[in-house]
């Protein structure tokens, strides 16, 4: 029985990296979005420029479930290297679309799926003479074929092609032609549309499709970042690139061409964070974007920024670790190395956006927090949030919002004789006042150092001032608890003793898993952590539930460790649900793992349990 589904299926494209498939696949995804059907696209790509396998998945989801679902209903198998595995991964009753130019033995094609062969290579060889054109237009031809098979309005695809090649108009007509070739060929070859299909809907609303890295960089623009120092590393590179792109559009003086920002590609991550710290010390809002290996390299400087109390913002787009690990796969495995970065007693502030919306919001807010707390702020993205496009509410900005520069003493205040001690806790919140270099001719200068010092920034090796300073830093950390975004509670429809703690890119899958579980009678209160250090709600939530699951995407249950460390809760109270193979966590997995552990619940594992 073929799988059926209107606006509810998963299609996966198996391609060869560097073959030009990415833009064709995006065209396909966006045309569905234009028909008003929510989508969740994801890229599964290799650490390679050309030749290795790459996959692109589009989940069409009328319900608006934007997490990865797991499983493939339709495979567009364009890569001979992975063909057998790709065919094997199709759900029973699913569909295979492939290039039938070279005959494939029937034994290789399953009997329990619908097989749709189109001689794409032959068609392109017939239609085009240039080898590169044959390759590139093959992608557009299959988009045309899929439009016919899945009932996508061809007019929407044509409109998008027009928009995509605006300014390169000579490319429009040949692309439209390729699209039509595929569309007409499929119409004549197959019975269109299939039982899985797209229908015009209004479920998208005003939502946008954005990558988290783009959103975070845009947040940095809105948050007033002027200095960006970075070193290229997957999957964070597009943060710096998007910052540059947006600044070039929004922060260049039209008359003079002068830039109200400075971007330096540093020689390594150590220099990158050093520049950020130098700029932060000197009163500019500065950030770096990196990933796990970069965080490892920055450790010494992060201790300096913590101890000398210098504002800095880091966007950590997490990937699979340790070491080089899985550079193009996603994980949430830098939590402890960021929270406790550097030697000695250190604690750092972390923010956990759940997608592009919060990546923008936190991306801007991190700069206020860094100034308010005079310490590094880590915005913890991951590859899934950062490099995949996500459907989210449009970005919003309140024009009355002003930058909060924290406690900066001005020349006028110094002139009036206000007492200045760089590490003096005058307000009782652990946050001292600072001066920006160059402020006043004779007052307010101080010496910044990573060595211990007294309240007036004078070098000392005595025990009492050292302890005094370290304890004030803890008070400052408690102040952070009150300033940070609160956790969000997703309450079960009925009272329950089961709680789930989750964060970051797990959000969409967790929301869906909670619905799945509720439909089976397992009700969970779910609390989404948005920042570290934790507020009082976390402890209360754990105390109010008998069994608390902590869902995270790493092997060692790092968030669970942080919870027990920061809140002093009994580790036995927290049950780890872990996923760390580098793919985005799915609702099916969370549902299965929780169901298997809920006391007194023995629901049969449903057919999706294999995924």
């Amino acid at each position, binding site marked *: 029985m073929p799988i059926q589904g209107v606006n509810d299926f998963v299609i996966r494209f198996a391609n060869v990296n560097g073959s030009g498939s990415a833009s064709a696949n995006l065209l396909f995804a966006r045309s569905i979005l234009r028909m008003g059907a929510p989508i969740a696209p994801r890229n599964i790509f290799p650490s390679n420029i050309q030749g290795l396998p790459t996959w692109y998945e589009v989940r069409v989801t009328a319900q608006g479930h934007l997490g990865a679902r797991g499983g493939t209903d339709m495979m567009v198998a364009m890569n001979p290297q992975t063909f057998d595995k790709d065919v094997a991964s199709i759900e029973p009753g699913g569909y295979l679309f492939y290039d039938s130019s070279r005959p494939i033995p029937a034994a290789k094609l399953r009997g329990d799926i619908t097989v749709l062969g189109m001689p794409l290579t032959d068609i392109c060889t017939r239609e085009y003479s240039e080898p590169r054109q044959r390759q590139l237009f093959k992608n557009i031809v299959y988009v045309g074929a899929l439009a016919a098979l899945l009932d996508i309005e061809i007019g929407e695809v044509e409109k998008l092609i027009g928009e995509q090649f605006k300014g390169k108009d000579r490319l429009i007509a040949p692309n439209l032609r390729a699209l039509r070739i595929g569309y007409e060929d499929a119409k004549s070859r197959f019975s269109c549309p299939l039982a899985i299909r797209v229908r015009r809907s209004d479920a998208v609303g005003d939502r946008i499709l954005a990558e988290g890295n783009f959103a975070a960089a845009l947040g940095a623009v809105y948050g007033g970042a002027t200095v960006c120092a970075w070193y290229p590393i997957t999957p964070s590179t597009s943060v710096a690139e998007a910052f540059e792109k947006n600044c070039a559009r929004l922060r260049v003086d039209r008359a003079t061409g002068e830039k*109200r920002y400075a971007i330096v590609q540093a020689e390594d991550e150590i220099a990158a964070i050093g520049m950020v710290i130098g700029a932060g010390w000197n009163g500019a809002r500065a950030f770096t974007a990196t990933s796990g290996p970069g965080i490892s390299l920055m450790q010494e400087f992060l201790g300096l920024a913590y101890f000398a109390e210098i504002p800095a913002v880091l966007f950590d787009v997490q990937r699979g670790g340790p070491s080089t690990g899985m550079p193009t796969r996603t994980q949430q495995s830098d939590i402890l190395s960021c929270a406790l970065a550097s030697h000695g007693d250190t604690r750092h502030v972390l923010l956990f956006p759940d997608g592009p919306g919060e990546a923008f919001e936190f991306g801007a807010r991190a700069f206020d927090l860094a100034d308010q707390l005079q310490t590094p702020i880590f915005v913890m993205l991951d590859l899934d949030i950062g490099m995949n496009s996500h459907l989210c509410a449009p970005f919003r900005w309140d024009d009355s919002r002003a*930058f909060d520069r924290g406690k900066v003493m001005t020349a006028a205040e110094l002139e009036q004789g206000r007492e200045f001690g760089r590490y003096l806790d005058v307000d009782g919140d652990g946050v001292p006042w600072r001066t920006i270099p160059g402020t006043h001719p004779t007052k307010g200068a101080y010496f910044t150092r990573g060595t211990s010092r007294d309240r007036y920034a004078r070098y000392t090796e005595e025990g009492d001032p050292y302890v005094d300073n370290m304890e004030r830093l803890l008070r400052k950390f408690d102040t952070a608890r009150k300033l940070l975004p609160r956790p969000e509670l997703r309450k079960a429809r009925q009272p329950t003793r089961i709680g789930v703690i989750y964060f970051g890119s797990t959000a969409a899958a967790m929301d869906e898993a909670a619905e799945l579980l509720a439909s089976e009678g397992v009700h969970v209160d779910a609390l989404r952590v948005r920042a570290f250090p934790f507020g009082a709600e976390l402890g209360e939530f754990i105390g109010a539930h008998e069994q608390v699951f902590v869902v995270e995407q790493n092997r060692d249950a790092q968030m669970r460790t942080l919870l027990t460390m920061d809140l002093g809760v009994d580790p036995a109270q927290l049950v780890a649900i872990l996923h760390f193979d580098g793919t985005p966590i799915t609702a099916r997995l969370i549902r299965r793992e929780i169901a298997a552990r809920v006391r007194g619940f023995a629901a049969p594992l449903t057919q999706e349990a294999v995924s």
Partner: protein
Amino acid sequence: MSYLAKPKFQHPALSVNALGFTHRDYEGAISTLCAGCGHDSISSAIIHACYELSLAPHRIAKLSGIGCSSKTPTYMLGQSHGFNSVHGRMPSVLTGANLANRDLLYLGVSGDGDTASIGLGQFAHAMRRGVDMVYIVENNGVYGLTKGQFSATSDKGSKSKKGVDNPDTPIDLVALALQLGATFVARGFSGDKTQLVPLIKAAFQHRGAAFIDVISPCVAFNNHEGSTKSFDYVREHNCALNALDFITGREPIEIDYAAGEGRTVAMHDGSSIRFHKVAEDYDWTDKSAAMAMLERHRARGEIVTGLLYLNDEAEDLHARLNTTKRPLNGLGELELCPGSKALEAINASLR
């Protein structure tokens, strides 16, 4: 107690500079380095240069790494903000600070361990980026705070205090700076303040990466017989290529040298450098000549001092990035935040 504030009183007749500051206003805390340390002479030369140039102390930012040399910013320019960062990483911190505010003057103080060993990479990249700064290496060829290990600038065959010969080839930071694109390259000797003070003054007026390697003997660990960085050795082998006077626009040029003995060169900012004691017919604008000359003297076992290379038309990092003339740290919401209207257009492009 490891921080010794200097008493505030001063002689009432102390002369003042154009800003009304006395020499005392450019001093810092009392040095905790060893008595007779070459580094203290360099601090004193920096203080002297800043006083004579009438630089506003609060418009100078002094940054350093870790080591004996990196402690010295505490002992000078007490009215300036200072930053004693991490080992070998002063250049990146200074680069960031410079990006934040292009209007301050930046002094980076480092040592041979801090720059030639752990910090070689950051040194190289600050030079090639043309960061507008005065980069002074207080070069004693030895690790002082950890008591006498060779550094990367120790000459091959130089003897340690314990009597061991250094087996490795030294790094010549001046040669490196030249190759890496520094636009002001000089070498001084802590024992020759007459030569050093004008070099520092000229470096402060230079807009671009100005590098001065100052040989600064370590009295505790590297001032013995057999060391090539001892006071005696450096005095005997010092080949002073030139000595100079740095003349700002406001000062009248006093000619007290016979014709043919010196040369006065006008700089683009209205100041001028007058060279005298010229060792040979040397063209300091010719980089390849500078390289060849360094190598020639090195082969003879001589240490060349003086201004070795100057490109007066240098372009600094800000010019290369085309950043606004206003310091970035002074920009507010109006200049930086594009607002909700711009965001609507961005949202529309993402549908």
